[in-house]
Structures are given as structure tokens and as C-alpha cells.
């Protein structure tokens, strides 16, 4: 049935619509300003669709952002179409889904929210047949379940995910934490101005430590060494961020950090030439080193190679 044919036009105050209601939410984390300007210039071409519930509350079905824009513009009456209360939630959600799917590309955060809702409202085979192909998500493999979990995160985390400030794997890890912990971690890592890669490292290391030591992340962060960096007033933010990262890294990889420090001290003791560097093998997997010498010309390179050959010969 085409439910639009069964909806009725009416005029409402947009402020009377409960825009926080998530029944038919297909989120969009992009800025509203372009849409608001468009409505200011030419008005609303397609009326939003709303539904009035038995308790009198009015909720958005499709056109939530248009409604948000009209509220932002201070409009006190707009044209909407009213969907009968009897329309089942699953039908209303499908309507909202197809309305969105027709004209926008879902970003991954939106996809996660939609997947979660689809699996709440529809049997698995219907979800697989009607929705997942449009969303571009395979039914098999771990990603579906991961996105389904991410879809339940708080708006601030979903927004960070949508804008690429946290990676998908980080978002998935955050799902396994208490709400207070994950919101606190987002807040902390954003205050330290860490990019998505560094957030991913720090959050995954803290999560690993928490599981391995059976200790809540809040307790790890309450350790004196961590607290002193988090609450420190001295030093620039990037400096504090780097020290914080190094601290968590030293908890997670103590042997590696010990070897790195040892190696750094050894290199310092070698008084290397300015154009010279010595690197260990990856993670010190074997005791070898790579010596790098930058030269200004092939002639200089040739002289150095020759000298190295001379030096190496007796050991051959």
C-alpha cells in the first residue's frame, strides 16, 4: 500500500513535533545550514511526514531535518502530511528508509543506526533481502554484527564516527564499554586533539589492558601517572597527547619499550655522524640493525661503500 496516498495534509507548529523521538530515525550527521538556507529562500517543496500517537504526541516519520530547519528558522506553522496512527512502526520505518535511500548516500554511521533498527523491526531474512543490499552490507562475516552494535552508540560518538574522528573498529570497541567510560574516552581523546589513528591506538590499548588485567578503564586512567598528564596545566596539548600515548603504550608493550629505550641509549653512545642513522629490525625480532647514511652525491656514496667493504673484508 502507498501510505502517502493515505496521509492527510495539515498545518502544524514545527515546535510541536517531538524531534528527539527515534522511532523512525534515519540519522544524518551533516550540517543543517545549507538546508536551512534553502528553506529560507524557497520554502519546503515536499511536506514532511509526521504521525500523531495515541497520547497526542506528534513524531517525525520523514523530513526530520526539514522540521529541524524550520524550528531553527523560528517558523511557527508549516505544511506536513499526517500518517494515520494505525500504521505499524515497521511500515513507517520502511517509508522513512525508502524516502532517504532514494535521494542520499548513507554514511557508515547512518548505516549502522539503520541496520540496528532494521534488525529490531524485521525478521533476519527480510532484513537480508530488502535492506542490506541497499546498504551495501554483506549478511555474512563479522561486519554486520559490528555495525549493528555501533548503531546503538550515543549521538556524540556516532557523529564522531560519521565525521571520521573515530574509526569503525574503535567505535566497535567502544560498544563494549559502559556509556560513561566511552563518552569519557571520546571527551579525553578529543581534548588531547588526537587524530582517529591515535585515538584507535590508545582506546584499543586501554581496552586490552582492561580485559587482560580485569580492571575498569576508569581505574587505569585514575593511576597517578595518567592523572598527572590528563589534568596537567603545563605543556602544549600535542606534548601532553604524545606523553599520554607513550604512557599507555608502555603499559601495553613493556618489553618493547624497554628495548627501544635501551637501543636509543646505545645509539646516543655511538656519536653518529649527522647524516647517519641506525634502526633496529621491526620490534627487535632479531638483533640486526639497518644503518642508513645519506650522501650528497654518488661519488660520496662510492667512497663510503668502498670504506665499508674494506672494513667488512676481515670478517668475511
Amino acid at each position, binding site marked *: 500500500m502507498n501510505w502517502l496516498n493515505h496521509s492527510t495534509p495539515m498545518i502544524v507548529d514545527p515546535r510541536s513535533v517531538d524531534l528527539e523521538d527515534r522511532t523512525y530515525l534515519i540519522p544524518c550527521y551533516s550540517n543543517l545550514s545549507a538546508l536551512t538556507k534553502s528553506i529560507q529562500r524557497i520554502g519546503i517543496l515536499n511536506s514532511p511526514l509526521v504521525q500523531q500517537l495515541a497520547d497526542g504526541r506528534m513524531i517525525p516519520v520523514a523530513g526530520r531535518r526539514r522540521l529541524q530547519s524550520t524550528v531553527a528558522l523560528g517558523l511557527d506553522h508549516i505544511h506536513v502530511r499526517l500518517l494515520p496512527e494505525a500504521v505499524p512502526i515497521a511500515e513507517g520505518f520502511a517509508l522513512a528508509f525508502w524516502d532517504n535511500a532514494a535521494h542520499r548516500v548513507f554514511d557508515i554511521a547512518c548505516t549502522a543506526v539503520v541496520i540496528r533498527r532494521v534488525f529490531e523491526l524485521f525478521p*533476519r*531474512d527480510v532484513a*537480508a533481502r530488502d535492506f542490506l543490499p541497499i546498504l551495501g552490507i554483506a*549478511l*555474512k*562475516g*563479522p561486519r554486520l*554484527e559490528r555495525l549493528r552494535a555501533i548503531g546503538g552508540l550515543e549521538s556524540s560518538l556516532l557523529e564522531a564516527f560519521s565525521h571520521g574522528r573515530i574509526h569503525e573498529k574503535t567505535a566497535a570497541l567502544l560498544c*563494549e564499554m559502559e556509556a560513561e567510560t566511552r563518552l569519557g574516552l571520546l571527551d579525553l581523546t578529543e581534548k588531547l586533539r588526537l587524530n582517529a589513528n591515535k585515538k584507535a591506538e590508545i582506546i584499543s590499548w586501554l*581496552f*586490552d*589492558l582492561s*580485559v*587482560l588485567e*580485569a580492571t575498569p578503564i576508569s581505574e587505569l586512567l585514575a593511576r597517578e601517572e595518567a592523572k598527572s598528564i590528563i589534568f596537567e596545566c603545563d605543556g602544549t596539548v600535542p606534548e601532553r597527547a604524545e606523553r599520554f600515548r607513550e604512557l599507555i603504550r608502555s603499559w*601495553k*608493550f*613493556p*618489553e*618493547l619499550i624497554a*628495548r627501544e629505550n635501551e637501543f636509543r641509549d646505545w645509539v646516543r653512545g655511538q656519536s653518529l655522524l649527522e647524516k647517519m642513522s641506525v634502526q633496529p629490525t*621491526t*620490534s*627487535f*625480532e*632479531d*638483533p640486526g640493525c639497518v644503518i642508513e647514511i645519506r650522501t650528497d652525491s654518488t661519488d660520496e656514496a662510492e667512497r663510503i661503500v668502498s670504506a665499508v667493504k674494506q672494513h667488512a673484508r676481515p670478517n668475511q
Partner: protein
Amino acid sequence: MKFPIEQVWVDDEVRDEPLTREILRKLPAARILGKNEIEDQCRAMEMDRDPFNRGKRTLRLTKNKGAFVKPCPGTPEYICCGLEILNIGQGCPMDCRYCALQVYFNRPILEVFVNTGDLFSDLERHLINDPRGVHRICTGEFTDSLALDPLTGLAGKLAEFFSRSTNASLEIKTKTDFVDPLLEVDPHGRVVIAFSVNSREITRKDEIRAAPVAKRLAAAARAEKRGYRIAFHFDPIIPVPGWEEAYSSVINEIFTTVDPSSISWISMGVLRFVPALKEIAAARFGRIPYFHDGFIRGLDGKSRLHVDRRINIYKYMIDKIRRRAREARIYLCMESPHVWRECLGISMDSDDDLTSYLDSAILPYTYGL
């Protein structure tokens, strides 16, 4: 039959194979599915949140269309032992939480290659045609060598085959104690029954449906008595708190049960895994603390503990083994020459070096006879 098989999928082309008929005879309660039903089941399995639960109760009888004998895939950058794999099937009815196979199979059912006529002719051809001096062949890479043997009876036939071979030995690798049918065969020292062993805590918590350590060791003693060579694989060694005492206890029990002279080799490998395994295991079993230890990316892309820590673990284990068996042939699975030197004082610089080291364990029973 210890492991519950609820469904058997029979491929059309193997319907008349003798082993198909034999297996079906032993599974009167299982549902036998035809082609259409199998397709439905495949779809249902793809939709399942944990396909492994269903897959481990589903047996597919199929034909191996490729080569039966293949070299062990090994791993880049680390020393490989030159083992050859005899593919008798794939998938395992046991469910070890750390099992690497969880990453590799999209449709994690149990598969038995029932075209055993092809298997034996391929094997024979391989041993005749391949100019290599001696072959160490193992059936336990993509499956447990004995888990489905009560259904297939293949291990005994293979033991018979290898008992007559002059240039090859068979390694039967298992976490079961299903050795009794093998006791009817005199292996002439050319068959090694290898038991994967672990600490009791890991066995109890992580090796779901596998035989307890004591039963594996009792099976080792029975096999030893019949003239089988024995091997033990401590792989993966998982250094959870208290691991030292836990592994020492198993080492002591091994040497209380089996004479060191009957042991062909003892291998060791500290837990390493492709990174995806951590999340797959978490999705199936919940978070497992040891996967969250300080793993770093190894040279082969697998997650490995830091080399210093691995060396300490190996040294501890080697010391405990040497106290009970000074001459034990110990080898490290997929480790670097540096780790070999540090732990065993041996220059193991290439795959060929390790191959020779292990081949020497079976030479007295092949050409040497």
C-alpha cells in the same frame, strides 16, 4: 562416536564411494541431505550469527579434486619444518577457542574426502616421483587427524600404508585419545602419533570437546607400547598467570608416562594468530583475556608476543624438558634463527636446516631399516 553429527551432506559424485556407505551406516540417526536441501542449509548457515555451532555438527562427504599431498603453507620470514600435508578433510568437531581455523572457513562444516582410492594413489605417486630423500607427512593441519576416525577408519589404513614405506613417515596429530584402532597395526616405527598438549587450565577452558590431558597421555602410553613413535606439540603455549607451574606439571607427566627414547620430537610455539582471530573468537566466546596481552605485529603479519618474552618462555620450557630428557629433539614452530640460537643454541638459518634436523628423527626407521 564422541562428536554429535546431526546432518550429513552427501555430494552426488561420491554417493557410491565405499567410504560414503560406511560412514552413513555408522550414522543411522543423522539426517542425510540431498543437493537442494544442502543449498537451503548453506543459506541458513550464512544467516547464522555463529555458523560454527551448526557447522561442527554437519558432516559433508565430498571429493578432493586437487592434490592430496601439499607442502605445509608455513609463514613468511620464519623457519618452517618442511612438513607435507596429506589432506584427508577439513574442519574439526572440537572447538578450541584459539583455533586458527576459525578465520579461514566461511562455511565451517566438517568435510571428509571420501575418494580414498585417489588419496592412496596420489600418495603412492608422490612418494615414488618425488626425488626427496625422506618425507614427513602429516594429516593434522586442517583437521584433527583422529577426531573423525571412528567414522572413517582411515588412520589405520594410512598406518598400514606407511608401515611399508621406506622413504616416508606419517605424523598423526590429535587432541583426542582415539588411538585404539591403530593398535592393530605394527607401524615399524614409521608412524608418529603426536599429541597436542597444553596446560590443564587451557585444556579445560579452551579446548572444548577435546580429551583431557590425562587421557591423551594414557593414549600415548598405549601407542608407545605398540611400537608407535610419539611426539608432543606444545602449541600454542599461552602464558596466562601461573603458566610456568602449569606447563611444568604437564611436562613432568609426559615423562612419567612415556619413555623419552620413544619420543621423536617435541615442538613448541607461543600463541600467535592472524589479527582477525581476536575479534572472531570474542564474537563467539566473549572476550578471552590472553588475546589482549601485549601482542605486536610479527614479520609475517601475525600477532606475536615480543621476541624477548617468547625467548624467556621457550627457555623455561626447554629447561624443564631437558631435565627429564637431555637428548629430546625439541623444535620451535615458525620462529626466527635468532630465537633458535637464543633458546636452543642451534644455528637454524633456513627451512632446509630444520627439515634435516627433523628428518634425522625418522631416518633410522625408513632407509635405515
